[in-house]
């Protein structure tokens, strides 16, 4: 059952990436919403909350851009490489 081994090996990687991006990014997004709500709660203006909130949204948008880059790269027969930490587009092997 070599296939089972390959599948389980793939599965935990997908689970890890899924948790990081699929749960992590929405959580950051929710924190951003929380910050914005805090920024104008109780009639006191808190610019720090606004800055933090938009900062968190920016991280989420970067995540979405990564997703789009990946889809486009796949269409052109390329893949993303995280070899240098930051993603680069490489030919598909």
């Amino acid at each position, binding site marked *: 059952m070599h296939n089972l081994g390959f599948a389980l090996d793939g*599965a935990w*990687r*997908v689970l890890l990436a899924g948790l990081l991006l*699929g749960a992590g990014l*929405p959580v950051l997004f929710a924190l951003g919403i929380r910050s*914005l709500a805090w920024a104008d709660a109780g009639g006191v203006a808190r610019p720090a909350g606004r800055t933090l909130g938009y900062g968190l949204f920016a991280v989420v948008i970067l995540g979405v851009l990564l997703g789009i880059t990946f*889809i*486009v790269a796949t269409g052109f027969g390329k893949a993303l490489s995280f070899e240098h930490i930051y993603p680069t587009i490489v030919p598909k092997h």
Partner: protein
Amino acid sequence: MTQASVVLALVVVTALAFDFTNGFHDTANAMATTIATKALKPKTAVALSGILNLVGAFLSVQVALTVTNAVVKIQNSNGTPKESLVSDGGSALLLIILAGLVGGIVWNLLTWLLGLPSSSSHALFGGLIGATIAGLGWAGVNWNGDGSKLDGVVGKVLLPAVLSPVIAGVVALVGTWIIHRITAGLAARHTDQGFKWGQIGSASLVSLAHGTNDAQKTMGVITLALIASGDWTDTKNIPFWVKVACALAIALGTYLGGWRIIRTLGKGLVDIAPAQGMAAQSSSAAVILASSHLGFALSTTHVATGSVLGSGLGRPGAQVRWRVAGRMITAWLITLPAAGLVGAAMWGVGHLVGGLAGALVVFAVLVAASLAVWFRSRRTPIGSHNVNDDWEPVAPPAAPADEPARVPVTAAHGGV
């Protein structure tokens, strides 16, 4: 026109019909939660998803011709058809492809009628496996791969089907639970707009990824048929008209909506709140893209369903209708054999009658079956007007909870 070119035309038309069913069968994967939480109006949601599928399909610049190699042995590793199958002008291969496609379409239509989200790629693979067993015997099927990588029916179909809903479910469960913790007690004016855009963004990613992935499969199958009949020789590129036709077919199908399945996934399985919708859709997008990046491609349908289930388990107090979930899982289990049986039967019929007449009979059976399903569906139409009605009617007489098709509706108009 020679006999062979008529058969080829039938195969191309059938493949585009499959692509079309693939479109409306899978609209729900991207848009069911967005529609259920009213982040987008039903018509707007399917239009957005259709456009993104069109864009995604055109992004498919490099199309692999080896799509069938995962499950059957009718192609060489460079994408050309096996020589033994094209010795008679390609008719042996064309009949297997035609019968397999019919198996996939018939199963897609039946599950749509019942409002069950089942995997379109499994239906296609099931049909091809059935037709191949009938035509070439058990040895024609790539059951387990060659041991060097995840491959074959077990590695590309069965194992991913078991694992994908679990992975997506866990991700959505964790996401939903934490998001609810973070945003508990916030006024709706703070959260609603945010969750709305979160859902639209993640649903758009799923639609785009669907267009690039699924339209490619039909492009590959049509090009394989063209090579088999000698009308195309380039294994590095596909004809431009094939790309345009497939892109349009999947986009139109998506735009049509598949409202029955949207209803089951959006309203039937769990009652979705906006935060859950965002968590479920983000989980789907991340799991689909990550799995495709890691070469462990998962079915969009299984991932989306797992995500919705997970989001139901993650929100305190949310109810999961396990009977609906059970029906879905049953449908997943029988997708492969059921589509396979239809595919095998179609090959048998086509082979028995033989030649052009055989292909015409198979095509006629497909048309008859499609019309029968369509007329049956008109008795309980579900469309954009009633897709979001309560799953269980509040007032008696109560319709059976697990039968979406019986929800009483009076309007005779409406889509699919």
